[in-house]
Every structure is written in C-alpha cells, then in structure tokens.
C-alpha cells in the first residue's frame, strides 16, 4: 500500500518552510510596524458564514458535513471569518480594529488537479471609512512590496462603487452583461450587445479607463457625472494626493495604476479595490478592497461598520522571489555537534549541549546519538555543514574540533 497525499495537496519540507517563513516574517514586520495584531480564526466555518458576503462561489469551497448534518466548509479566505468574529466578539472594543492573519486557505478549482491549499497573509482595518483609511491600506501594500524587494511591481487600483455607479446608465436588462464584459475585458462581447451608439462608446470608454491616476481622473471628470459620482471622483483625487504627500520623494516605489475597469461581477466591494501584480504581469501578488456593507451581514441587528483589507498570496510571492535569489537556499546548519566519545558519556554530552544552548539563545546544538566511529561523525558534520564538533569524555571534559 502506497499512501499518497490527496490530489492538489502538497507537503512543505524544511527548506520550503524556511523560504515561506522568510516571506511571512517580512510581511509580519510590516504589519507589526503599523500596529496590527494577529487574529487566528477557525479553519472550518459554517457554509452560510462563508457564503454571506456573496463573493464566494460555493462550488469552489471544499465542503464537509458535521454529525448534525450542518454544512461546513474549509475557509477559502479569511475576511468572512474575521467579520463574523469581529462583530460578535469585539463589540465594545475601541475602533478602529487593526487585525492581521497568516493562515492556510482551501479552494477547489474547476481543473481539479491544481493546488487546493494555499497560504495567505493579510490585514483587515475595521471601523474606519475615511480617505485616510484607504491611504493607510495602500501605503501598507506598498510597504509590504518594498520590504520584499518588489519595487518593480504594480498596484492596479480601481473604485468598485464608482464603476458600478457609472454602469447604472445602462438599461437594467443589459447591465449584468455589460458589467461581466468589462470585468473580463471582453471587448467583442461589448461591441455585440444591442446598445445605442452613445452607450456603446461609453462602455468601450469604461473598458479602457486606465493609466496614470491623475490622467484617468481628468478623463472621468469630463464625463457627465451625478453629484454622488463627482464626490467619489473627488475622494479618489484626495486619496491620490494623500498618497503623493505620504510617499513624498522616496525613490523606489511600486507603480500605482488607476484602472476603473477593475471590478468584480458581484457586489462585495463598495469602494477602492486593488491588485498587486508582479513586474512580468504573470503573478497576482495580493489583492483587496473596501467592503462597507459586509460587517452588517454578520451583525445580529444588521449594524454595519466600514471595513477595508487586503491579502498577500504567499505562493505567488514565492514564485516571483525564488529566481531573484533572495530566499534562503538551505536550512540553517547547526552550530555545534556534541559527540559522546563512549556510551558512558551520553549523559555528560546532553549536559554540555544544554550549557552551550543556554549561553546564547540563537545557537543550534545537536547531540550525536548513534554513530561511533569518529570518521563517520566528521563526515556527517561536513555534510550538514556543522562547523564545530565537541567530543565529550565520561568525565564531561570537552575537546573542541573545527571542521572546514
């Protein structure tokens, strides 16, 4: 019998873990630096909790059933869990709440051989709805990318509320088709929809409303806008100015691209939305946005709080960082190998090893357990890149030998 992992599952060995930790440690430094606190929520959620926001396709959730017949799912993302936990258990805590997580998520794909389990590190800023909160989120994304030496990446920024509102000028029957075509960049579909020339031009304009933020805002301002739409455009303008001031003259920065065609086909995000994309455009490194209606869905009385967050995809980051050579290429070797030179000196060897460990909290000390010949011990130390061997005699006397 050969036991294999389930299709789409993978094991992470020590070197994989060291590389993953390298990325996660850098993200965590940034989250801590901005005053965020870690939250750990359940891997399993009730299916209705996961579905409440309307952004999750139930067919992508790996489902289970508990003993009472309740439908459960392995979380495909963490915002739903955090929203559920925050509205019920953090009620009364002073706002805003700054939370971060570092967790595994599970997703079933149509092509079922693809990976099922992924790792994500992300933040949620709950109870702050201002332009300054939007700016904090984007600055945090830029800081994460910078701390990972990914200054050549791009943040694509959209405004779900504004784009949705601009779509309201289309006849209701055609609106979902227009929205879907814009979300999927399907220009052919847009050109074939039964729209008036004026509306078709507007749809095509929306499809390509992207570029340097101030240029795009200039172009949007020239459209006939309702009061509320103009207010959103002004808010975006304030956001861009705020970012400009905050980033100031610091030289290396990921580029920000404003793209008003960046929308989803579901109403989950209510304000800015964004994706961090690698320099080659081949990896989505992270994504997020503002969701001001979500917390209300989890509140017993429907009271909502503004919320905004983003997540960094550890696998995507790993793929982009690996060829740059900045990830560790080996697990850290032990500093010392403590070897009892006879079976009687084992006790003394453990005692001596502990003495070294206590001298410096970062030192790694192994005790040799079974090899007896000194040559075997030396060859093992060499292969493991351990530089110091300490031979211990039954009296506990050490003899240090350096290996090169």
């Amino acid at each position, binding site marked *: 019998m050969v036991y294999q992992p389930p299709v789409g599952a993978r094991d992470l060995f020590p070197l994989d873990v060291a590389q993953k930790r390298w990325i996660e440690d850098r993200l965590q430094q940034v989250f801590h630096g901005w005053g965020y606190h870690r939250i750990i929520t359940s891997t399993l959620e009730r299916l209705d909790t996961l579905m409440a926001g309307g952004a999750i396709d139930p067919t992508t959730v790996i489902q289970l059933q508990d003993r009472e017949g309740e439908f459960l799912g392995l979380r495909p993302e963490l915002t739903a869990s955090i929203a559920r936990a925050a509205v019920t258990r953090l009620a009364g805590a002073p706002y805003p709440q700054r939370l971060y997580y570092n967790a595994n998520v599970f997703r079933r794909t149509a092509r079922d051989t693809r990976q099922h389990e992924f790792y994500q590190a992300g933040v949620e800023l709950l109870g702050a709805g201002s332009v300054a909160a939007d700016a904090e989120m984007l600055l945090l994304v830029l800081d994460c990318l910078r701390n990972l030496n990914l200054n050549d990446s791009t943040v694509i920024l959209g405004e779900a509320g504004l784009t949705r509102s601009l779509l309201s000028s289309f006849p209701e029957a055609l609106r979902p088709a227009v929205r879907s075509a814009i979300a999927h960049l399907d220009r052919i579909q847009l050109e074939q929809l039964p729209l008036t020339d004026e509306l078709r031009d507007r749809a095509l304009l929306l499809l390509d409303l992207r570029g340097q933020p101030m240029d795009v805002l200039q172009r949007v301002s020239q459209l006939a806008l309702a009061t509320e739409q103009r207010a959103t455009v002004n808010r975006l303008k304030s956001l861009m100015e705020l970012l400009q001031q905050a980033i100031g003259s610091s030289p290396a920065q990921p580029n920000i691209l404003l793209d008003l065609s960046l929308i989803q086909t579901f109403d989950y995000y209510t304000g800015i939305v964004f994706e961090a*994309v690698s320099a080659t455009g081949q990896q989505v490194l992270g994504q997020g946005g503002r969701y001001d209606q979500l917390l209300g869905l989890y509140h017993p009385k429907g009271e909502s709080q503004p919320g905004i967050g983003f997540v960094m995809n550890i696998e995507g980051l790993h793929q982009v960082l690996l060829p740059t050579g900045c990830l560790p290429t080996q697990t850290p070797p032990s500093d010392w190998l403590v070897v009892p030179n006879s079976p009687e000196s084992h006790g003394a060897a453990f005692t001596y090893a502990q003495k070294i460990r206590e001298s410096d909290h970062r030192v790694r000390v192994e005790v040799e357990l079974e090899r007896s010949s000194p040559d075997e011990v030396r060859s093992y130390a060499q292969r493991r890149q351990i530089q110091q061997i300490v031979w211990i005699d039954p009296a506990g006397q050490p003899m240090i030998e350096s290996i090169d």
Partner: protein
Amino acid sequence: MLTVALPKGGLLSDSIRLLQSIGLDFSAFLDASNRQLEIWDTHQTAKALLVRNNDVPVYVEYGQAQLGIVGYDILREKQPRVAQLLDLHYGQCRLSVAVKASSPYRSAIELPPHSRVASKFVNCAHTYFQGLDLPVEIVPLYGSVELGPITGMSEAIVDLVASGRTLKENNLIEIDPIFESTARLIAHPLSYRLNQDGVQDRIEQIRQAIETARRV
C-alpha cells in the same frame, strides 16, 4: 518582449498574413521544412509560439504569451480567463449538430432522450443539450468524430462545419447550427491592463489592419 501564440492548422496562414501587415514577420512558420516552435520576427521585436489550437488560450491565460489568435469555438469550449479583444473575421465555421443522412431526425430536439452524441466539444455540446432540456450522453472523442454515427456508436455528433464537405463525404447532414465561429485576438488580462511590451499599440494596429481589410 511581446510574445504571440499562433495556432497550427487552418488559421495559421491568415494569422501570419495579418501580423505581417503590422510589421511582424513570422512567415518562417509556413515553410514546410520548419521544425521550430518558437521564432523571432525578422526585426527581433517580437516572438511567436506555434502551438495547438487548444493550447493558444492556455499560453495566454498563464501569461507566457501576451497575445494569441484562436477560434471562438475554442474560447466557448474552454472558457479561459483571457481578454477577448477583436473579431478577426477569418476562419469562419460553425459548431453544428449532425446526424447520418439516413437518420429519421431532422432537428436536435427530435433526438430520443439519452441518445449518445459524440464530440470534441464536450462542454459546448453539454450546454447546448441542457438548454434544450434534452438529456443525452456526450461521448468525448479527439478526432474523426464523423465515425461516431457511421459505426453506430452515437446517434449524432456536435462538430465544426466549414464547407460541409467532410459531412457530405461521410453521408452525414447538418441539422442544427449551435453558434458561428471566427478567429479572435485574445490577450493576457494583466498584460493588457499593464500595457506590457507595448501590447496596446499592437492591438490598435491589428484593429486598424482588420478594419482596412474589411473596407476593401
């Protein structure tokens, strides 16, 4: 570097002619002695990959090619996450239901429930019969689908029809068209958003070339 995925087979020569008209020369692919799968254009400004029809959207979806040319039939069947930008108006054909000429059925809806339908276009066939609310068993085949009804394995087929000659030579008749297909220009969505390697300019040039060609 701009990379274009080009399909082997019927769409290749028109596609190469189209790219030539915007200054990208990949005509080496048309040389019968060519065995290369990746070539540079003569000015070294772009690269082309020669791949199976079905694989064009795969290379584009994963971003190994920023642009690709592929039949709409493949896009309908595989539903890849790519930006569909331009109808190139060549490679016209349609996906149709066909039966043996001697079959008593003259429309798809008349087929008896639970009959077998052979096709390379499993998803399109499934969606179509589901739309008719007619339960059928789709038998996936990879080539020479016409043999399905001839050997008696299946009652009908769902396959591409261009001139209709293959059907006729095999004593089959087309009973219901499902959709029309032409060649399409597709792009990797993020490369399109980021305008990588001047991809937007190239798309605009292709759009103009197509419009000019259609005016003549």
